[in-house]
């Protein structure tokens, strides 16, 4: 019921935004912020009423769409998807707040794109029907494509939007074939029914590969990662935040929910493949990140590295690994969002993303630099921040699964230190190159929830783990090891 209410509220909110006349920009902004904040409160209520003791789906909504073909829209939340939902609802109000002074082109379209993106993302994360999952998974592309293509900063944005669209669409076509095959084979696309279906080993492998093609482009894994830096560089700040904070999680969420959940044997079969690809990804993108000169491109490459670590955790097939992967996804949602917001603040003031342009900002913007330092340290996994918990547990599980994999994955501790410190040092220290205002109250409030969340998750992560235990244990013990 609560979930239905949430979706109805959000949809009505979008309709309401259409009604507001285009010249009342402030009103539209306040309205959109209000809608997303209320949705955030809704999602917190979901957490509050969540029953931790069961792996079953809760708040289930069943909407008969094509009962004759057995395709119905089913929504529900379990311990795995709950935090993805909360992350989504938290990031969106922050994004709107961050683009408060963003005034380029039609604000109405901009806000509608964002609100509809939130709606679609929430639908993806709560979806329990394979066909609808595919539809919404693809539908996310449209508003994001618009945001990059219309509100991007340079002419190159067309190329970036093209790459973004091409990669994700191309991968997803395979998933569509897989979904159709599953539907023809099992006669249903309902997740809970499919979980009881036993696909043959041969089928599983092909289906796994079909889904892999789609999710790997989203994570992104190695050969199909180049859309991400491109899209990040061209997207407006809020777009980058959504991209890094939430869109990348679609990939890991998809792997977790569908690849591991539906094709456990194929997942085990392909584990060495995923490990090698992810390890390459971690080392390769970290090395590349060290040499970037564009702020956003650098952070984008680090995102790739971190998400590849998450992949290793997912495929260790241990409860520690999977829980850590979820927590690391969540933590990455906080930290990389914050880093993109930080770059957004620099870009707002000086309209440059070149690292060399900046220097000595700690002289004039001390509060900003403290926050930047905090997130730099979170990015390199300093204990006490959320990424430490995620990274440490991921590596523990990797050590359990394969010490060699763990060894190479752990080099990200060193390489991560390299790029993070270098970037921070270049921007914060040295002689004064620029003079600018420190954070405004709005910007400070923007960072406050992220800082507190990152710290809280680092010092007392149990509150997150306790929600996951039932669902993840069920996934690992019932599916992977049966």
């Amino acid at each position: 019921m609560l979930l239905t209410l949430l979706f109805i509220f959000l949809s009505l909110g979008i309709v309401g935004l259409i009604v507001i006349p285009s010249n009342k920009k402030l009103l539209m902004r306040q309205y959109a912020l209000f809608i997303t904040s209320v949705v955030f409160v809704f999602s917190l209520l979901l957490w509050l009423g969540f029953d931790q003791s069961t792996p079953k789906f809760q708040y289930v909504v069943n909407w008969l769409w094509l009962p004759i073909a057995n395709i119905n829209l089913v929504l529900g939340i379990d311990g795995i998807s709950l935090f993805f939902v909360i992350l989504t609802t938290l990031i969106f109000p922050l994004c709107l707040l961050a683009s408060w002074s963003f005034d380029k082109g039609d604000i109405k379209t901009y806000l509608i794109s964002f609100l509809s993106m939130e709606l679609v993302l929430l639908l993806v994360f709560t979806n329990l029907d394979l066909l609808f999952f595919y539809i919404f998974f693809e539908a996310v592309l449209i508003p994001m494509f618009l945001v990059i293509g219309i509100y991007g900063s340079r002419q190159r944005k067309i190329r970036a939007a093209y790459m973004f669209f091409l990669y994700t669409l191309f991968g997803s076509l395979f998933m569509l074939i897989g979904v159709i095959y599953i539907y023809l084979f099992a006669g249903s696309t309902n997740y809970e029914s499919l979980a009881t279906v036993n696909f043959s080993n041969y089928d599983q492998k092909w289906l796994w590969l079909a889904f892999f093609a789609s999710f790997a482009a989203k994570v992104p894994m190695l050969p199909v990662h180049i859309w991400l830096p491109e899209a990040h560089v061209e997207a407006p700040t809020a777009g980058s935040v959504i991209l890094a904070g939430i869109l990348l999680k679609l990939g890991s969420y998809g792997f977790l929910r569908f690849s591991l959940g539906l094709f456990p044997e194929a997942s085990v079969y392909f584990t060495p493949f995923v490990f090698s690809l992810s390890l390459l990804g971690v080392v390769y993108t970290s090395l590349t990140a060290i040499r970037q000169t564009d702020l956003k491109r650098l952070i984008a490459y680090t995102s790739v590295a971190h998400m590849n670590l998450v992949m290793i955790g997912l495929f260790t097939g241990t409860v520690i690994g999977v829980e850590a992967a979820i927590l690391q996804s969540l933590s990455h949602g906080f930290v990389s969002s914050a880093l993109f917001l930080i770059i957004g603040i620099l870009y707002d003031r000086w309209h440059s993303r070149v690292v060399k342009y900046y220097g000595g900002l700690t002289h004039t913007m001390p509060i900003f630099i403290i926050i930047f330092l905090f997130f730099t340290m979170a990015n390199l996994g300093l204990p006490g921040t959320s990424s430490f918990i995620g990274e440490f547990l991921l590596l523990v599980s990797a050590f359990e699964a394969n010490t060699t994999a763990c060894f190479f994955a752990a080099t990200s501790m060193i390489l991560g230190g390299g790029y993070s410190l270098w970037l921070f040092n270049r921007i914060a220290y040295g002689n004064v190159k620029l003079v600018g205002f420190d954070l405004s109250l709005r910007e400070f409030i923007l960072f406050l929830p992220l800082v507190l969340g990152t710290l809280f998750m680092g010092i007392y992560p149990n509150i997150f783990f306790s929600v996951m235990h039932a669902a993840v244990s069920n996934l690992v013990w019932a599916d992977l090891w049966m």
Partner: protein
Amino acid sequence: MYLNIVFLPLLGSLVAGFFGRFLGGRGSGLITISCVGLSFFLSGLAFYEVGLGGSSTYLYLMPWLESDSFHVDWAFCFDSLTVVMLIVVTFISTLVHLYSTEYMGGDPHLPRFMSYLSLFTFFMLILVTADNFVQMFVGWEGVGLCSYLLINFWFTRIQANKAAIKAMLVNRVGDFGLALGIFGVFICFGAVDYATVFALAPQLSNSTLSFLNLEFNALNLIGILLFVGAVGKSAQLGLHTWLPDAMEGPTPVSALIHAATMVTAGVFLLARCSPLLEYCPDALFVISIIGGMTAFFAATTALVQNDLKRVIAYSTCSQLGYMIFACGLSNYSVAVFHLANHAFFKALLFLGAGSVIHAVGDEQDMRKMGGLRRLLPFTYAMMVIGSLALMGMPFLTGFYSKDVILEVGYATYSSASHFAYWLGSFAAFCTAFYSIRLLALCFLSEPNGSRTLLLSASEGSWPMGVVLGILAVPSMFIGYLSRDLFIGLGTDFWGNALFFLPNNISIIDAEFMSTGVKILPLCLSILGGLSSFILYRNYSRNLFLLKTSILGRKLYTFLNRKWLFDKIYNDFITQNTLDFGYHFTYKSIDRGLIESLGPFGFSNVLLDQVNKSRSWHSGYLYHYLVILGWSNLLFGLWFIFGFKFLPIQVLFIFIALWSIL
């Protein structure tokens, strides 16, 4: 009370950090000093209760993370080892806080500085009081962060920036090993808290662990991985390069972090893991070899350094080598004893050096000092005390621990220990030589500084003097006073905190060695000191000739450039990695191969094909007729001869070729 010991410095740090601009330099100084001072006072009580009273204390706060079988708590454990570290850390920290208010008094960022210092103290206390490996890792990384911030305190200086990044990165290489060690501990023992791990260690001494697809003895592997962490933090050979560079930070920082406390964390880790390490003979072998080599390497390098602080930094490195090598010989109590002693006299030396630098207008090059004996008599006296204690002159503090380390080195009958013993003895010679050289160049020789500098040189005000005076007392007497408590035969001070396998106890053999062997290191020290004194007093001309001779020049350059470690790391490892990251992964693959095969290759091919097929639609009838004719012919052939003659694949190839051409 026990919790306050740990959290008071954090409180001070937060207050000074966030409200420093309202409190001002003096206010924040007062707050942090009183917080850390109170923490010291409570540590004293804890020392009495836990160390002397023998009642170990355990404090449980809350669970930290629980995932499957991985369970970690926020909890504190106070045993004898911890309280010794507590006393050392809070004592030195309090004095350094006091010293800094004067030394950094003119700096507008004093509140920030005090806040960092207190934060450092907090993390150091977390490190020593943790009851499990992961929480220890929090402190371990936390002190690394504070070290980064403090080295970088004067952030406009590019050298400070470089040194800070280097310190953190090199340390992370060590942390990488430590983290792997902790993972190994969890995989083998199923737990990461000390109590469980150490209790189970004897049971697992024969188990194996596969690492990098090779089969290792589990405990040996873990021991070596943990030791890699210690190598990073304690600046042992291989990962030592950050320590001398870290001297770019303010001098009180060098005294607190890079001499007395943080760099000893590695030694503390080894001592803490003694119940585990005792079952890893191979790891102990490696530890003692590396320790001995570090002691030797750093001492030889310190012989020819010209920067006042770098000499002391290399000396620290060398002394840490002694401690590590004592750990490798299973004499953890001796190592910790030397750790505590060293903290006092090395802090004294650094703060004395700070006093000198303060007096001569921030000049650090010893060749530009000289003649300061008459200008800074008090500092001179303090430096002499510190140097003599460092050299291990009889009845001063260093004598009681350093000589014992060398004695047990001789008395442990293994090749590794004798290797370390001889290197250590030679290092003792070098130690005395460079200590006296430092005194000679700074204080005794002819004045070499500019006239204005020398005229304005004067002692700092009372806080600096008081701190030096206070530190001089333990530098002289603490070794004598606490020797029996810490390393006396049959002392029960350590309780369960340190563990020795009965086979490995060598302190009794050390006690009854022949006198000749016992006084050999001392003789070498005296010889080194005397020769240095005489050479630099009367024969500096001969020294110069020696330095400029062909062989001497080569040796001098080699030592002065720190055995070329930095050059090898920079030129062969770092530079190649960075080049790889740019030219190969980024330029060739990301922006080259993938882009041209991926989206842009795709769009180019598509565009090309579209253009070609467009040219077919020329509008001329004969073009269409040709195509019509050809296809009629082909289909005719197909119908007549069927698939046998013209398989469909051939047809496709034909069409494809046609379309491309």
